[in-house]
Protein backbone atom coordinates (compact mmCIF):
# COMPACT_ATOMS: atom_id res chain seq x y z
CA UNK A 1 0.00 0.00 0.00
CA UNK A 2 2.98 2.28 -0.38
CA UNK A 3 2.36 3.72 -3.80
CA UNK A 4 -0.73 4.96 -5.53
CA UNK A 5 -0.78 1.85 -7.70
CA UNK A 6 -0.99 1.98 -11.44
CA UNK A 7 -2.83 4.88 -12.88
CA UNK A 8 -2.13 8.10 -11.10
CA UNK A 9 1.37 9.35 -11.71
CA UNK A 10 2.57 6.29 -13.55
CA UNK A 11 0.54 6.58 -16.71
CA UNK A 12 3.15 8.56 -18.61
CA UNK A 13 5.88 6.04 -17.93
CA UNK A 14 4.31 3.22 -19.91
CA UNK A 15 6.19 2.66 -23.12
CA UNK A 16 4.01 0.00 -24.68
CA UNK A 17 0.29 0.26 -24.99
CA UNK A 18 -1.90 3.17 -24.17
CA UNK A 19 -4.36 3.52 -21.35
CA UNK A 20 -7.91 4.76 -21.50
CA UNK A 21 -10.27 5.46 -18.62
CA UNK A 22 -13.04 2.88 -18.22
CA UNK A 23 -15.55 5.74 -18.18
CA UNK A 24 -15.22 9.29 -19.43
CA UNK A 25 -15.70 10.89 -16.03
CA UNK A 26 -12.44 9.38 -14.78
CA UNK A 27 -9.73 11.93 -15.54
CA UNK A 28 -6.27 10.40 -15.88
CA UNK A 29 -4.55 13.38 -17.44
CA UNK A 30 -3.12 14.93 -14.27
CA UNK A 31 -0.69 13.68 -11.66
CA UNK A 32 -3.58 12.49 -9.53
CA UNK A 33 -6.51 10.62 -11.02
CA UNK A 34 -9.80 12.32 -10.27
CA UNK A 35 -13.50 12.17 -11.03
CA UNK A 36 -15.16 14.90 -13.07
CA UNK A 37 -18.82 15.71 -12.68
CA UNK A 38 -21.23 17.80 -14.69
CA UNK A 39 -22.65 20.22 -12.16
CA UNK A 40 -25.83 22.22 -12.72
CA UNK A 41 -25.05 25.92 -13.01
CA UNK A 42 -28.31 26.79 -11.28
CA UNK A 43 -28.49 24.43 -8.26
CA UNK A 44 -25.12 22.68 -8.13
CA UNK A 45 -26.45 19.12 -8.45
CA UNK A 46 -23.68 16.90 -9.86
CA UNK A 47 -23.94 14.09 -12.40
CA UNK A 48 -21.36 11.76 -13.90
CA UNK A 49 -23.23 11.40 -17.17
CA UNK A 50 -24.26 14.19 -19.50
CA UNK A 51 -27.74 15.47 -18.83
CA UNK A 52 -30.19 17.29 -21.04
CA UNK A 53 -31.62 19.16 -18.10
CA UNK A 54 -31.07 18.99 -14.36
CA UNK A 55 -33.17 16.25 -12.72
CA UNK A 56 -33.40 18.37 -9.59
CA UNK A 57 -34.13 21.93 -10.77
CA UNK A 58 -34.57 21.54 -14.56
CA UNK A 59 -31.68 23.94 -15.28
CA UNK A 60 -30.15 23.46 -18.71
CA UNK A 61 -26.53 24.46 -18.37
CA UNK A 62 -23.77 22.53 -16.68
CA UNK A 63 -20.10 23.03 -15.91
CA UNK A 64 -17.57 20.29 -15.39
CA UNK A 65 -15.70 20.21 -12.13
CA UNK A 66 -13.48 17.76 -10.27
CA UNK A 67 -14.77 16.10 -7.13
CA UNK A 68 -12.75 15.28 -4.03
CA UNK A 69 -10.62 12.13 -4.09
CA UNK A 70 -11.46 11.29 -0.48
CA UNK A 71 -14.70 10.39 1.20
CA UNK A 72 -16.49 7.93 3.47
CA UNK A 73 -18.31 4.66 2.86
CA UNK A 74 -22.08 5.22 2.90
CA UNK A 75 -23.00 1.58 2.34
CA UNK A 76 -21.53 -1.62 0.97
CA UNK A 77 -22.12 -5.21 0.00
CA UNK A 78 -19.83 -8.14 -0.61
CA UNK A 79 -20.64 -9.75 -3.91
CA UNK A 80 -20.16 -13.51 -4.15
CA UNK A 81 -22.18 -14.22 -7.29
CA UNK A 82 -21.46 -12.00 -10.26
CA UNK A 83 -21.46 -11.76 -14.00
CA UNK A 84 -18.98 -14.02 -15.82
CA UNK A 85 -15.48 -12.56 -15.89
CA UNK A 86 -15.87 -10.67 -12.64
CA UNK A 87 -13.63 -11.89 -9.84
CA UNK A 88 -15.48 -12.73 -6.63
CA UNK A 89 -15.81 -12.02 -3.84
CA UNK A 90 -15.41 -8.29 -4.08
CA UNK A 91 -16.63 -5.33 -2.09
CA UNK A 92 -19.01 -2.83 -3.71
CA UNK A 93 -19.43 0.52 -2.00
CA UNK A 94 -21.30 3.78 -2.34
CA UNK A 95 -18.97 6.58 -1.23
CA UNK A 96 -19.97 10.05 -0.03
CA UNK A 97 -17.18 12.26 -1.36
CA UNK A 98 -15.82 15.00 0.88
CA UNK A 99 -17.29 18.29 -0.28
CA UNK A 100 -20.24 16.72 -2.09
CA UNK A 101 -21.07 14.08 -4.65
CA UNK A 102 -21.64 10.36 -4.32
CA UNK A 103 -20.15 7.54 -6.39
CA UNK A 104 -20.35 3.76 -6.62
CA UNK A 105 -17.21 1.67 -7.04
CA UNK A 106 -15.30 -1.35 -5.79
CA UNK A 107 -13.48 -1.11 -2.48
CA UNK A 108 -9.93 -2.31 -3.07
CA UNK A 109 -7.09 -3.30 -0.75
CA UNK A 110 -9.44 -4.73 1.80
CA UNK A 111 -10.48 -8.22 2.74
CA UNK A 112 -13.87 -9.18 1.30
CA UNK A 113 -15.23 -9.77 4.77
CA UNK A 114 -18.01 -7.86 6.54
CA UNK A 115 -15.70 -7.48 9.54
CA UNK A 116 -13.23 -5.50 7.42
CA UNK A 117 -15.67 -2.93 6.06
CA UNK A 118 -17.85 -0.51 7.95
CA UNK A 119 -20.24 2.27 7.09
CA UNK A 120 -18.47 5.57 7.68
CA UNK A 121 -14.92 4.32 7.05
CA UNK A 122 -12.70 6.90 5.34
CA UNK A 123 -11.47 6.00 1.86
CA UNK A 124 -9.45 7.47 -0.97
CA UNK A 125 -9.58 7.17 -4.74
CA UNK A 126 -7.27 4.62 -6.38
CA UNK A 127 -6.99 3.28 -9.91
CA UNK A 128 -6.40 -0.19 -11.33
CA UNK A 129 -6.24 -1.89 -14.69
CA UNK A 130 -9.56 -3.58 -15.42
CA UNK A 131 -8.83 -5.01 -18.87
CA UNK A 132 -6.72 -4.98 -22.02
CA UNK A 133 -8.07 -4.86 -25.56
CA UNK A 134 -6.73 -6.49 -28.73
CA UNK A 135 -4.44 -3.55 -29.40
CA UNK A 136 -2.87 -3.70 -25.96
CA UNK A 137 -4.74 -0.69 -24.68
CA UNK A 138 -5.47 -0.93 -20.98
CA UNK A 139 -8.77 0.16 -19.47
CA UNK A 140 -8.10 1.91 -16.19
CA UNK A 141 -10.86 1.73 -13.61
CA UNK A 142 -11.16 3.63 -10.37
CA UNK A 143 -11.95 2.27 -6.96
CA UNK A 144 -11.47 3.25 -3.36
CA UNK A 145 -9.10 2.04 -0.66
CA UNK A 146 -9.18 2.50 3.10
CA UNK A 147 -7.31 5.62 4.20
CA UNK A 148 -6.28 4.49 7.66
CA UNK A 149 -4.12 1.65 6.45
CA UNK A 150 -4.60 -1.08 9.01
CA UNK A 151 -1.58 -2.95 7.65
CA UNK A 152 -3.83 -4.97 5.43
CA UNK A 153 -2.77 -7.90 3.36
CA UNK A 154 -0.36 -7.83 0.53
CA UNK A 155 1.87 -4.81 0.78
CA UNK A 156 2.67 -3.78 -2.74
CA UNK A 157 0.72 -3.09 -5.87
CA UNK A 158 -2.97 -3.74 -6.02
CA UNK A 159 -3.53 -3.65 -9.71
CA UNK A 160 -4.68 -7.25 -9.88
CA UNK A 161 -4.31 -7.25 -13.63
CA UNK A 162 -7.24 -7.70 -15.93
Amino acid at each position, binding site marked *: MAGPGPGAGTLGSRSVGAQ*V*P*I*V*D*YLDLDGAQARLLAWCCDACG*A*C*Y*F*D*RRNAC*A*RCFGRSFSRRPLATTGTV*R*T*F*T*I*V*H*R*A*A*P*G*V*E*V*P*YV*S*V*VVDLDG*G*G*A*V*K*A*NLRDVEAD*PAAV*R*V*GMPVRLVTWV*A*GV*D*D*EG*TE*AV*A*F*GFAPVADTAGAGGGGDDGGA
Partner: protein
Amino acid sequence: MAERDVWILGASMTRFGRYPDKDLIDLGAEAALAALDDAGVGMADMDVLAAGNLAEASSGVGQRLQKQIGQTGIPVYNVANACATGATAVRCVYLAIRAGEAEMGLAVGLEKMGKAGLLGAAARADRKVFTPSGRYGAVMSVEGRLGTTLMPGVFAQAGLEYAGQHDGVGFEQFAKVAEKNHAHSTLNPLAQYQKAFSLEEVMHADMVAYPNTLLMCCPTGDGAAAVVLVSEERLRTLPDEQRRRAVRIAASVMTSDPWTEHDQVQPDVNTLTREAARQAYETSGVDPRDLDLVELHDCFATAELIHYDNLGLCAPGEAGKFIDERGPWRDGAIPVNVSGGLISKGHPLGATGVANLYEVATHLRGEAGDRQIPDAKVGLTHVIGLGSACAVHVLERARI
Protein backbone atom coordinates in the same frame (compact mmCIF):
# COMPACT_ATOMS: atom_id res chain seq x y z
CA MET B 1 -66.21 11.45 -6.27
CA ALA B 2 -67.60 8.56 -4.29
CA GLU B 3 -69.53 7.22 -7.26
CA ARG B 4 -66.26 6.76 -9.10
CA ASP B 5 -64.76 4.63 -6.36
CA VAL B 6 -63.32 1.42 -7.74
CA TRP B 7 -63.74 -2.10 -6.41
CA ILE B 8 -62.18 -5.47 -7.08
CA LEU B 9 -64.94 -7.73 -8.36
CA GLY B 10 -62.86 -10.78 -9.20
CA ALA B 11 -59.30 -11.97 -8.63
CA SER B 12 -57.17 -14.96 -9.46
CA MET B 13 -53.62 -16.17 -9.77
CA THR B 14 -51.92 -19.27 -11.09
CA ARG B 15 -49.59 -21.05 -8.76
CA PHE B 16 -46.18 -19.47 -9.26
CA GLY B 17 -43.49 -21.87 -10.39
CA ARG B 18 -42.03 -23.24 -13.60
CA TYR B 19 -44.24 -24.26 -16.49
CA PRO B 20 -42.16 -25.73 -19.31
CA ASP B 21 -45.31 -26.98 -21.06
CA LYS B 22 -47.23 -23.69 -21.02
CA ASP B 23 -46.47 -20.49 -22.88
CA LEU B 24 -46.85 -16.96 -21.58
CA ILE B 25 -50.37 -16.57 -22.98
CA ASP B 26 -51.52 -19.91 -21.50
CA LEU B 27 -50.60 -18.59 -18.07
CA GLY B 28 -52.23 -15.21 -18.69
CA ALA B 29 -55.40 -16.79 -20.08
CA GLU B 30 -55.67 -19.14 -17.13
CA ALA B 31 -55.50 -16.24 -14.66
CA ALA B 32 -57.75 -13.97 -16.74
CA LEU B 33 -60.50 -16.53 -17.28
CA ALA B 34 -60.42 -17.53 -13.62
CA ALA B 35 -60.70 -13.89 -12.55
CA LEU B 36 -63.68 -13.36 -14.87
CA ASP B 37 -65.33 -16.51 -13.50
CA ASP B 38 -64.59 -15.38 -9.97
CA ALA B 39 -66.23 -12.02 -10.75
CA GLY B 40 -69.24 -13.68 -12.36
CA VAL B 41 -68.80 -11.70 -15.56
CA GLY B 42 -67.35 -12.26 -19.03
CA MET B 43 -65.20 -10.55 -21.63
CA ALA B 44 -68.32 -8.93 -23.11
CA ASP B 45 -68.61 -6.94 -19.86
CA MET B 46 -65.07 -5.58 -20.07
CA ASP B 47 -64.57 -2.00 -21.24
CA VAL B 48 -60.78 -2.06 -21.03
CA LEU B 49 -57.92 -4.55 -20.80
CA ALA B 50 -54.41 -3.93 -19.48
CA ALA B 51 -51.59 -6.46 -19.72
CA GLY B 52 -48.40 -6.20 -17.71
CA ASN B 53 -45.35 -8.13 -18.89
CA LEU B 54 -41.64 -7.47 -19.13
CA ALA B 55 -39.93 -10.24 -21.07
CA GLU B 56 -42.12 -9.94 -24.17
CA ALA B 57 -43.13 -6.33 -23.65
CA SER B 58 -42.91 -5.31 -27.29
CA SER B 59 -44.97 -8.20 -28.61
CA GLY B 60 -48.54 -7.01 -28.05
CA VAL B 61 -49.13 -9.30 -25.10
CA GLY B 62 -52.62 -7.94 -24.39
CA GLN B 63 -53.78 -8.49 -27.96
CA ARG B 64 -52.26 -11.98 -28.01
CA LEU B 65 -54.20 -12.66 -24.83
CA GLN B 66 -57.44 -11.36 -26.40
CA LYS B 67 -57.14 -13.95 -29.14
CA GLN B 68 -57.37 -16.65 -26.46
CA ILE B 69 -60.03 -15.12 -24.21
CA GLY B 70 -62.09 -12.82 -26.43
CA GLN B 71 -61.60 -10.06 -29.01
CA THR B 72 -64.22 -7.41 -28.43
CA GLY B 73 -62.50 -4.32 -29.80
CA ILE B 74 -61.93 -2.66 -26.43
CA PRO B 75 -58.83 -0.57 -25.74
CA VAL B 76 -55.79 -2.60 -24.71
CA TYR B 77 -52.87 -1.17 -22.79
CA ASN B 78 -49.60 -3.11 -22.78
CA VAL B 79 -47.41 -1.91 -19.98
CA ALA B 80 -43.90 -2.50 -18.68
CA ASN B 81 -42.67 -0.80 -15.50
CA ALA B 82 -39.96 -3.01 -14.00
CA CYS B 83 -41.17 -5.02 -11.01
CA ALA B 84 -44.15 -2.67 -10.64
CA THR B 85 -45.45 -3.80 -14.06
CA GLY B 86 -48.46 -5.73 -12.77
CA ALA B 87 -49.54 -2.89 -10.49
CA THR B 88 -49.18 -0.52 -13.43
CA ALA B 89 -51.62 -2.64 -15.44
CA VAL B 90 -54.05 -2.47 -12.53
CA ARG B 91 -53.63 1.29 -12.41
CA CYS B 92 -54.46 1.59 -16.13
CA VAL B 93 -57.83 -0.06 -15.54
CA TYR B 94 -58.33 1.84 -12.28
CA LEU B 95 -57.68 5.18 -13.97
CA ALA B 96 -59.98 4.36 -16.90
CA ILE B 97 -62.80 3.65 -14.46
CA ARG B 98 -62.03 6.72 -12.35
CA ALA B 99 -62.06 8.83 -15.49
CA GLY B 100 -65.51 7.57 -16.41
CA GLU B 101 -64.33 5.93 -19.62
CA ALA B 102 -64.97 2.40 -18.36
CA GLU B 103 -67.29 0.73 -15.88
CA MET B 104 -65.48 -2.57 -15.73
CA GLY B 105 -62.05 -3.75 -16.82
CA LEU B 106 -59.54 -6.56 -16.64
CA ALA B 107 -55.91 -6.23 -15.54
CA VAL B 108 -53.56 -9.15 -16.08
CA GLY B 109 -49.95 -9.54 -15.00
CA LEU B 110 -48.09 -12.40 -16.69
CA GLU B 111 -44.49 -13.50 -16.91
CA LYS B 112 -42.50 -16.50 -18.03
CA MET B 113 -38.90 -16.39 -16.87
CA GLY B 114 -37.95 -20.03 -16.45
CA LYS B 115 -34.84 -20.69 -14.41
CA ALA B 116 -33.01 -17.52 -15.27
CA GLY B 117 -30.30 -17.39 -12.61
CA LEU B 118 -28.80 -14.07 -11.61
CA LEU B 119 -30.68 -11.48 -13.67
CA GLY B 120 -28.46 -9.13 -15.63
CA ALA B 121 -25.43 -11.37 -15.32
CA ALA B 122 -25.59 -12.92 -18.78
CA ALA B 123 -22.21 -13.16 -20.44
CA ARG B 124 -21.47 -10.11 -22.49
CA ALA B 125 -18.61 -9.88 -24.93
CA ASP B 126 -16.45 -6.87 -24.25
CA ARG B 127 -15.36 -4.90 -27.26
CA LYS B 128 -12.14 -5.99 -28.85
CA VAL B 129 -11.00 -2.42 -29.24
CA PHE B 130 -11.96 -0.10 -26.41
CA THR B 131 -14.36 2.54 -27.70
CA PRO B 132 -16.29 4.83 -25.39
CA SER B 133 -20.04 4.44 -25.68
CA GLY B 134 -23.16 5.56 -23.86
CA ARG B 135 -23.69 8.50 -21.57
CA TYR B 136 -20.79 7.51 -19.33
CA GLY B 137 -18.40 6.87 -22.19
CA ALA B 138 -17.72 3.36 -20.90
CA VAL B 139 -15.21 1.23 -22.82
CA MET B 140 -16.26 -2.04 -21.20
CA SER B 141 -18.90 -3.41 -18.85
CA VAL B 142 -18.58 -1.64 -15.53
CA GLU B 143 -20.56 -4.27 -13.61
CA GLY B 144 -18.33 -5.63 -10.86
CA ARG B 145 -15.65 -3.11 -11.80
CA LEU B 146 -17.32 0.06 -10.59
CA GLY B 147 -19.37 -1.61 -7.89
CA THR B 148 -22.49 -3.65 -8.50
CA THR B 149 -25.78 -2.73 -10.08
CA LEU B 150 -27.25 -6.24 -10.02
CA MET B 151 -30.30 -6.63 -7.82
CA PRO B 152 -28.98 -8.74 -4.92
CA GLY B 153 -26.15 -6.27 -4.36
CA VAL B 154 -28.22 -3.14 -4.82
CA PHE B 155 -30.74 -4.28 -2.25
CA ALA B 156 -27.95 -5.51 0.02
CA GLN B 157 -26.49 -2.02 -0.09
CA ALA B 158 -29.91 -0.51 0.66
CA GLY B 159 -30.18 -2.79 3.70
CA LEU B 160 -26.68 -2.12 5.01
CA GLU B 161 -27.22 1.62 4.60
CA TYR B 162 -30.20 1.28 6.95
CA ALA B 163 -28.17 -0.95 9.28
CA GLY B 164 -25.43 1.67 9.37
CA GLN B 165 -27.90 4.34 10.39
CA HIS B 166 -29.91 2.42 12.99
CA ASP B 167 -29.10 0.26 15.97
CA GLY B 168 -30.13 -3.35 16.24
CA VAL B 169 -30.04 -4.23 12.55
CA GLY B 170 -27.59 -6.82 11.27
CA PHE B 171 -27.22 -10.01 9.27
CA GLU B 172 -29.42 -11.92 11.73
CA GLN B 173 -32.33 -9.49 11.49
CA PHE B 174 -32.26 -9.65 7.70
CA ALA B 175 -32.09 -13.45 7.83
CA LYS B 176 -35.09 -13.59 10.17
CA VAL B 177 -37.18 -11.98 7.41
CA ALA B 178 -36.47 -14.91 5.10
CA GLU B 179 -37.01 -17.44 7.89
CA LYS B 180 -40.48 -15.92 8.37
CA ASN B 181 -41.46 -15.82 4.71
CA HIS B 182 -40.35 -19.37 4.02
CA ALA B 183 -42.36 -20.48 7.08
CA HIS B 184 -45.43 -18.55 5.87
CA SER B 185 -45.21 -20.13 2.41
CA THR B 186 -45.83 -23.61 3.82
CA LEU B 187 -49.50 -22.62 4.21
CA ASN B 188 -49.87 -21.27 0.66
CA PRO B 189 -50.59 -23.86 -2.04
CA LEU B 190 -49.97 -21.19 -4.72
CA ALA B 191 -46.39 -20.52 -3.60
CA GLN B 192 -43.50 -21.61 -5.82
CA TYR B 193 -41.71 -23.01 -2.77
CA GLN B 194 -43.48 -24.29 0.33
CA LYS B 195 -40.61 -25.26 2.55
CA ALA B 196 -39.58 -23.93 5.94
CA PHE B 197 -35.93 -23.22 6.76
CA SER B 198 -34.37 -22.57 10.14
CA LEU B 199 -32.60 -19.29 10.83
CA GLU B 200 -29.32 -21.19 10.78
CA GLU B 201 -30.10 -22.68 7.39
CA VAL B 202 -30.94 -19.24 6.02
CA MET B 203 -27.73 -17.72 7.39
CA HIS B 204 -25.52 -20.58 6.21
CA ALA B 205 -26.94 -20.83 2.70
CA ASP B 206 -24.65 -19.79 -0.15
CA MET B 207 -23.84 -16.10 0.02
CA VAL B 208 -25.04 -14.14 -3.03
CA ALA B 209 -24.37 -10.54 -1.96
CA TYR B 210 -23.76 -10.02 1.75
CA PRO B 211 -25.96 -10.01 3.73
CA ASN B 212 -28.32 -11.69 1.25
CA THR B 213 -27.81 -15.46 1.08
CA LEU B 214 -29.51 -17.59 -1.57
CA LEU B 215 -32.47 -18.22 0.76
CA MET B 216 -32.87 -14.45 1.18
CA CYS B 217 -33.27 -13.85 -2.58
CA CYS B 218 -36.49 -14.34 -4.55
CA PRO B 219 -36.42 -17.03 -7.26
CA THR B 220 -37.17 -16.50 -10.93
CA GLY B 221 -40.27 -18.25 -12.22
CA ASP B 222 -43.47 -18.26 -14.24
CA GLY B 223 -46.98 -17.23 -13.36
CA ALA B 224 -49.88 -14.89 -13.91
CA ALA B 225 -52.52 -13.08 -11.90
CA ALA B 226 -55.58 -11.08 -12.87
CA VAL B 227 -58.18 -8.80 -11.32
CA VAL B 228 -61.53 -7.54 -12.59
CA LEU B 229 -62.21 -3.99 -11.43
CA VAL B 230 -65.61 -2.33 -11.39
CA SER B 231 -66.96 1.14 -10.70
CA GLU B 232 -68.99 1.52 -7.54
CA GLU B 233 -71.91 2.74 -9.62
CA ARG B 234 -71.93 -0.44 -11.69
CA LEU B 235 -71.31 -2.63 -8.65
CA ARG B 236 -74.53 -1.32 -7.08
CA THR B 237 -76.48 -2.81 -9.98
CA LEU B 238 -75.02 -6.31 -9.57
CA PRO B 239 -76.64 -9.17 -7.63
CA ASP B 240 -75.87 -9.51 -3.94
CA GLU B 241 -73.79 -12.62 -4.58
CA GLN B 242 -71.26 -10.48 -6.48
CA ARG B 243 -71.50 -7.40 -4.24
CA ARG B 244 -70.89 -9.47 -1.13
CA ARG B 245 -67.44 -10.58 -2.26
CA ALA B 246 -66.33 -7.27 -3.80
CA VAL B 247 -63.35 -5.59 -2.15
CA ARG B 248 -63.03 -1.81 -2.02
CA ILE B 249 -59.88 -0.11 -3.28
CA ALA B 250 -59.43 2.57 -0.61
CA ALA B 251 -56.26 3.95 -2.17
CA SER B 252 -54.26 3.36 -5.34
CA VAL B 253 -51.02 5.29 -5.55
CA MET B 254 -48.04 5.28 -7.86
CA THR B 255 -44.79 7.19 -7.47
CA SER B 256 -41.35 7.42 -9.07
CA ASP B 257 -38.17 8.43 -7.32
CA PRO B 258 -37.67 12.11 -6.62
CA TRP B 259 -34.20 13.56 -7.15
CA THR B 260 -31.66 12.81 -4.47
CA GLU B 261 -27.90 12.94 -4.77
CA HIS B 262 -27.47 9.25 -3.99
CA ASP B 263 -30.26 8.16 -6.27
CA GLN B 264 -28.04 9.16 -9.18
CA VAL B 265 -25.62 6.32 -8.46
CA GLN B 266 -27.74 3.82 -6.52
CA PRO B 267 -31.54 3.58 -6.81
CA ASP B 268 -33.11 4.85 -3.60
CA VAL B 269 -35.97 2.49 -2.76
CA ASN B 270 -36.95 4.49 0.31
CA THR B 271 -38.04 7.92 -0.90
CA LEU B 272 -40.70 6.79 -3.35
CA THR B 273 -42.02 4.08 -1.04
CA ARG B 274 -42.41 6.57 1.79
CA GLU B 275 -44.19 9.03 -0.47
CA ALA B 276 -46.53 6.37 -1.88
CA ALA B 277 -47.36 5.18 1.64
CA ARG B 278 -48.00 8.72 2.84
CA GLN B 279 -50.42 9.37 -0.01
CA ALA B 280 -52.13 6.00 0.44
CA TYR B 281 -52.69 6.49 4.17
CA GLU B 282 -53.94 10.02 3.59
CA THR B 283 -56.33 9.03 0.79
CA SER B 284 -57.72 5.99 2.59
CA GLY B 285 -57.77 7.46 6.07
CA VAL B 286 -56.18 4.21 7.22
CA ASP B 287 -53.50 4.24 9.89
CA PRO B 288 -50.71 1.65 9.55
CA ARG B 289 -51.74 0.26 12.93
CA ASP B 290 -55.16 -0.56 11.45
CA LEU B 291 -53.65 -2.93 8.87
CA ASP B 292 -54.58 -6.58 9.28
CA LEU B 293 -52.03 -7.72 6.71
CA VAL B 294 -49.44 -6.34 4.31
CA GLU B 295 -47.99 -7.84 1.15
CA LEU B 296 -44.82 -5.87 0.45
CA HIS B 297 -42.02 -6.16 -2.07
CA ASP B 298 -39.52 -8.54 -0.47
CA CYS B 299 -37.46 -9.21 -3.58
CA PHE B 300 -34.62 -9.63 -1.06
CA ALA B 301 -34.76 -9.98 2.71
CA THR B 302 -32.90 -6.69 3.11
CA ALA B 303 -35.66 -4.94 1.15
CA GLU B 304 -38.47 -6.21 3.36
CA LEU B 305 -36.77 -5.04 6.53
CA ILE B 306 -36.31 -1.45 5.38
CA HIS B 307 -39.87 -1.31 4.07
CA TYR B 308 -41.20 -2.00 7.60
CA ASP B 309 -39.91 1.47 8.33
CA ASN B 310 -40.77 3.01 4.94
CA LEU B 311 -44.39 1.87 5.21
CA GLY B 312 -44.71 2.95 8.85
CA LEU B 313 -45.28 -0.59 10.12
CA CYS B 314 -42.81 0.00 12.95
CA ALA B 315 -41.60 3.03 14.87
CA PRO B 316 -39.01 5.06 12.92
CA GLY B 317 -35.62 3.33 12.99
CA GLU B 318 -36.98 0.23 14.70
CA ALA B 319 -37.27 -2.29 11.88
CA GLY B 320 -34.74 -4.55 13.61
CA LYS B 321 -36.75 -4.56 16.81
CA PHE B 322 -39.95 -5.20 14.81
CA ILE B 323 -38.62 -8.45 13.33
CA ASP B 324 -36.89 -9.43 16.59
CA GLU B 325 -40.28 -9.17 18.33
CA ARG B 326 -41.94 -11.18 15.54
CA GLY B 327 -44.18 -8.24 14.63
CA PRO B 328 -44.46 -9.23 10.94
CA TRP B 329 -45.14 -12.94 11.59
CA ARG B 330 -48.67 -14.10 10.80
CA ASP B 331 -49.55 -14.01 14.51
CA GLY B 332 -47.69 -10.73 15.14
CA ALA B 333 -48.70 -7.08 15.33
CA ILE B 334 -48.93 -6.58 11.54
CA PRO B 335 -48.62 -9.79 9.51
CA VAL B 336 -46.35 -9.21 6.50
CA ASN B 337 -46.18 -11.48 3.47
CA VAL B 338 -48.32 -14.29 4.78
CA SER B 339 -48.31 -15.59 1.18
CA GLY B 340 -44.62 -16.38 1.56
CA GLY B 341 -43.66 -13.18 -0.19
CA LEU B 342 -41.56 -12.90 -3.30
CA ILE B 343 -38.83 -14.83 -1.49
CA SER B 344 -40.89 -18.01 -1.36
CA LYS B 345 -44.16 -17.45 -3.23
CA GLY B 346 -42.06 -16.39 -6.19
CA HIS B 347 -41.62 -13.32 -8.37
CA PRO B 348 -42.64 -13.70 -12.02
CA LEU B 349 -41.97 -10.01 -12.58
CA GLY B 350 -45.08 -8.87 -14.43
CA ALA B 351 -47.46 -10.93 -12.29
CA THR B 352 -46.26 -9.82 -8.88
CA GLY B 353 -48.09 -6.49 -8.65
CA VAL B 354 -51.42 -8.19 -9.40
CA ALA B 355 -50.82 -11.30 -7.31
CA ASN B 356 -50.40 -9.26 -4.14
CA LEU B 357 -53.87 -7.75 -4.70
CA TYR B 358 -55.24 -11.27 -5.15
CA GLU B 359 -53.64 -12.30 -1.85
CA VAL B 360 -54.98 -9.42 0.22
CA ALA B 361 -58.43 -9.53 -1.42
CA THR B 362 -58.65 -13.26 -0.68
CA HIS B 363 -58.01 -12.64 3.03
CA LEU B 364 -60.52 -9.77 3.13
CA ARG B 365 -63.10 -12.12 1.62
CA GLY B 366 -62.29 -14.72 4.26
CA GLU B 367 -61.35 -17.24 1.59
CA ALA B 368 -57.64 -17.76 2.26
CA GLY B 369 -57.97 -21.25 3.72
CA ASP B 370 -55.16 -22.42 5.97
CA ARG B 371 -53.32 -19.14 5.73
CA GLN B 372 -56.36 -16.94 6.46
CA ILE B 373 -55.66 -13.99 8.75
CA PRO B 374 -58.73 -14.11 11.03
CA ASP B 375 -61.30 -11.38 10.47
CA ALA B 376 -59.06 -9.36 8.13
CA LYS B 377 -60.72 -6.04 7.31
CA VAL B 378 -58.01 -3.89 5.75
CA GLY B 379 -54.77 -4.69 3.98
CA LEU B 380 -51.99 -3.00 2.03
CA THR B 381 -49.99 -4.04 -1.02
CA HIS B 382 -46.66 -2.59 -2.12
CA VAL B 383 -44.43 -3.17 -5.11
CA ILE B 384 -41.33 -1.44 -6.29
CA GLY B 385 -39.52 -1.73 -9.57
CA LEU B 386 -36.03 -0.32 -9.82
CA GLY B 387 -35.52 2.66 -11.89
CA SER B 388 -37.88 3.31 -10.09
CA ALA B 389 -41.64 2.78 -9.85
CA CYS B 390 -43.61 2.16 -6.67
CA ALA B 391 -47.27 1.27 -6.22
CA VAL B 392 -49.22 1.03 -2.99
CA HIS B 393 -52.82 -0.12 -2.73
CA VAL B 394 -55.02 -0.13 0.35
CA LEU B 395 -57.90 -2.61 0.21
CA GLU B 396 -60.90 -2.73 2.53
CA ARG B 397 -63.62 -5.22 3.25
CA ALA B 398 -66.82 -3.25 2.90
CA ARG B 399 -70.48 -3.78 2.17
CA ILE B 400 -72.38 -2.12 -0.59
